[in-house]
């Protein structure tokens, strides 16, 4: 069986099958770069839960994490990397194929 013969579910990205990670990357899809707070508000989760999922996406190279300071306040920005965008597009394409199959 070739890669193209496989069911599209095999092309779903393991990392993006988690609901929170899926939502984080979805929030960053159009915006490209958002602050930690903006992503937290968009995804509606706690800081600690977001930190944990951001760490795993950063480790996979899907997100870039920027640190800066405004006075003494730390500011964290999250940027969807090129690799992350490619993985996201592929994941959405696989989802679309599955949705199309279900609708047939």
């Amino acid at each position, binding site marked *: 069986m070739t890669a193209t013969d496989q069911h599209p579910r095999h092309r779903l990205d393991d990392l993006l099958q988690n609901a929170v990670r*899926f939502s984080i990357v979805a929030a*960053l899809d*159009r*915006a490209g770069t*958002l602050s930690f707070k903006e992503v937290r508000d968009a995804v509606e989760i706690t800081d600690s839960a977001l930190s944990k999922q951001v760490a795993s996406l950063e480790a996979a190279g899907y997100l870039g994490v920027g640190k800066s300071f405004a006075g003494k306040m730390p500011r964290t920005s999250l940027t969807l990397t090129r690799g992350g965008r490619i993985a996201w597009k592929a994941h*959405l394409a696989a989802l679309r194929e599955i949705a199309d199959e*279900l609708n047939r």
Partner: protein
Amino acid sequence: MRGSRAIDPQLLLERADRLSRSAHNATRWPYIAFIIALGVATSMGTFAMALTTGSGFGLAYTGTLVVMFALIIFFMISIQGRAAFARSPRWSAYIASWFVTYAGALAVVIWAHESVVLAAIASGLILVVSLICAAREARS
């Protein structure tokens, strides 16, 4: 999704699109408003400067600086708490594009003063580039 096989992929796609749009819309309007206003103000300002002399030139010069200063204050206030995009490569590219055309228009003001055609082209270019950046960001 793992452990939730009953979720319709179509619903996931719709949720992703909705989340992406709302996150973008909630944070981008000050950036889009700023780049449009900056383009309009500097375009008209440099055009006025290129075509005037004496007190008229002074008025155009001062007016442009005042408007730019006011816009920067508006921008700094309105992006408080959502300034992450201001440090992104995309925003840097927009501002760099505006700056290059603005510098070009200032060069026309300095070296080709009262040339209507050159002033119109240089000032029009500022406006066009700013509007393209704003449209690109609005549609991203």
